[in-house]
């Protein structure tokens, strides 16, 4: 099913912008037409990212009322499914890494030289104390095939068409959310995504706070995931460096690579 390929578009984690950004050079970005269907939008975005591999460096700030933590991380992606994320700062967390291969995830702790595979029961837990859950990092094809997608609104803003999408999981879908809503610009830049529970109360929201050129194209440079249930709880990710045409070897996405590098 083609619609299953919308997967990485809704990939709401740190890798979201990377994976859902067009993998073609600036200036050639095809715009989605105003009357594009929901499926065309999502598929179009995915066609552009297919097969691409990327390297990005990001700063992540976890904000709480009582404390704030600044971290830095590197991420490599391959296609829509595989990713390796490694923290580089602060020193205490440097080397901690998460590997995602299709549906499976592992975390490696270099201080203890141990890795753990994440069971599905843990996927809703917070990733590295941030407002992202492992689920946010690991959403993939078969996960997303359970959604009905609908365009609920189109608006014109600053020369772009902005589509509001509503994604409702099927009744029997193994999805924790009751509904997800998304604002997507016609050049496939995601502006916001909101996660609602089964009672359709909004619990988490990801917002693009700054859009700019990097790695040869327009991407969301700063994104913030806010916990709507807890005031003043948010995690912000800022791109420091991006190469969307990086030639990342396939060996990067292996358990061996997870363990072997710092």
């Amino acid at each position: 099913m083609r619609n299953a390929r919308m997967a990485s578009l809704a990939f709401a984690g740190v890798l979201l912008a990377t994976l859902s950004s067009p993998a073609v050079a600036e200036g050639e970005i095809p715009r989605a037409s105003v009357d594009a269907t929901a499926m065309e939008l999502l598929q179009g975005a995915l066609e552009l990212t297919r097969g691409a591999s990327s390297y990005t460096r990001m700063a992540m700030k976890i904000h709480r009322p009582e404390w704030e933590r600044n971290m830095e991380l590197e991420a490599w992606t391959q296609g829509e499914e595989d990713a390796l994320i490694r923290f580089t700062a602060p020193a205490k967390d440097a080397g901690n890494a998460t590997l995602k291969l299709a549906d499976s995830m592992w975390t490696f702790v270099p201080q203890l030289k141990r890795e753990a595979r994440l069971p599905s029961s843990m996927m809703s837990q917070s990733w590295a104390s941030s407002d992202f859950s492992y689920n946010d990092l690991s959403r993939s094809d078969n996960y997303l095939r359970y959604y009905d997608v609908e365009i609920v609104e189109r608006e014109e803003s600053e020369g772009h068409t902005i589509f509001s999408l509503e994604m409702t999981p099927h009744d029997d879908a193994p999805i924790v959310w009751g509904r997800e809503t998304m604002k997507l610009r016609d050049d496939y830049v995601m502006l916001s995504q909101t996660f609602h529970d089964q009672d359709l109360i909004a619990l988490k929201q990801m917002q693009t706070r700054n859009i700019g050129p990097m790695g040869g194209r327009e991407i969301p440079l700063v994104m913030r995931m806010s916990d709507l249930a807890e005031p003043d709880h948010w995690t912000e990710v800022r791109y420091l460096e991006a190469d969307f045409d990086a030639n990342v070897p396939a060996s990067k996405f292996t358990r061996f690579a997870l363990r072997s590098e710092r």
Partner: protein
Amino acid sequence: MAAADIAQAPPVANSAGTGSVGMGLYMRVAWRNLWRNGRRTWLTAGGIAFSVFLCVAFMSFQLGSYDGMIDTATGMMSGHMQVQHEDYLDDPKVANRIVAGSDLLRELEDSPDIVAAAARVEGFALVSVGERSFGGLVMGVDPVREPKVSALSGQIVEGEYLPRADSAYVGKALGTNLGLKIGDEIFVLGSALEGGVAAAVFNVDGFFDTGQVELDRSILQVPLSAVQSAFGLGDSVHRIVLMGKNANDATAIAQGLAPTLPEEVRVLDWDKLLPELRQMIQMDAVTSVIVYVLLLAIVTLSVANSFTMTVFERTREFGMLVAIGMKPGGIVAMIVIEALCMWVVGTAIGAAVSYALMIGLGAVGVPIAGLEDMAGQFMMPERIHPEVSFLTLGTAPVVLLAGTLVAGLIPALRVRRLKPVEALREEE
């Protein structure tokens, strides 16, 4: 003179003896009346005796099992009381902690009402071995203090209880799910207090099996300081578990402790920690009260029936008594005293048998053999000690005393409307 003496004597004797001699006479007559129909009296008294026995025995066992349930349930993990951050009960996250944990623990230990105290930290984490991993509640405990507030260390089925600083004591079901055996190494991975990764490695040194699936499947205990450092908690703790002398004193002790605690810290008694326990007891109590009420009502009705018969059969006798000058009130009193005597006989037998049995069983306890699985599930102790108290021993006799008096009084009051002439014409 002699005639005058005789004429004056009875009033003197009467006025002097109304209280003692008169009452004694009533008692004697009532007692004798009771045995004019011995079979009926024995049957009615037997009913009273049997219901006293049933009520006393059931109530003693019931309340005894409640005490046992409370002791077992509070003794497993929760303790009689807990000191926690004020938000921890509703939102048990790592950040809702008591900051200077060891100081507060020492202070509480010095409190005269507290028999034992132990601190815990808890964090939800991934427990992993090889390719397998499960979410679990990692509980940091003090291996010396913890066994005094929790029976978990006694539920050991294999190995030892936290012998080393990197030991883990793992629920049997969690161990099975992870394919663990004694000596295996487990990797624990969670989120630290102020961001970042909380990770630690432990050695499996013991397994426990409580029979309560939710504990056996999710909990692993490890030494307190290991969890505090892995989660970046410093000296913070999440719970200080307290034991008093008796679970029933928890509320009073908790009230006494509350004003001495630091800000944002509160003390909770087991009623609040285990609300389902109190609800379970209340639900059970309500259904049994209905049974007791029915049982005692039936016995009261049978006593009333027996006295109604008596009053009908003895109409002629009462007519004659009134005719020779006895006041109807006296007859009512006599019948009520008869009822009272009936109660004394029945209760004496029922109480003697049941009290002896309950006091004896209360001392040794009654094993619930073959119900170990159910016992684990429903927090039942392995032996029930029937409770011997004023409530369990006294309720049935007192209720039946009231019931018997009413049962005697209602038919007796008919005597006040008795017309001696008509009554005397009744066939005996």
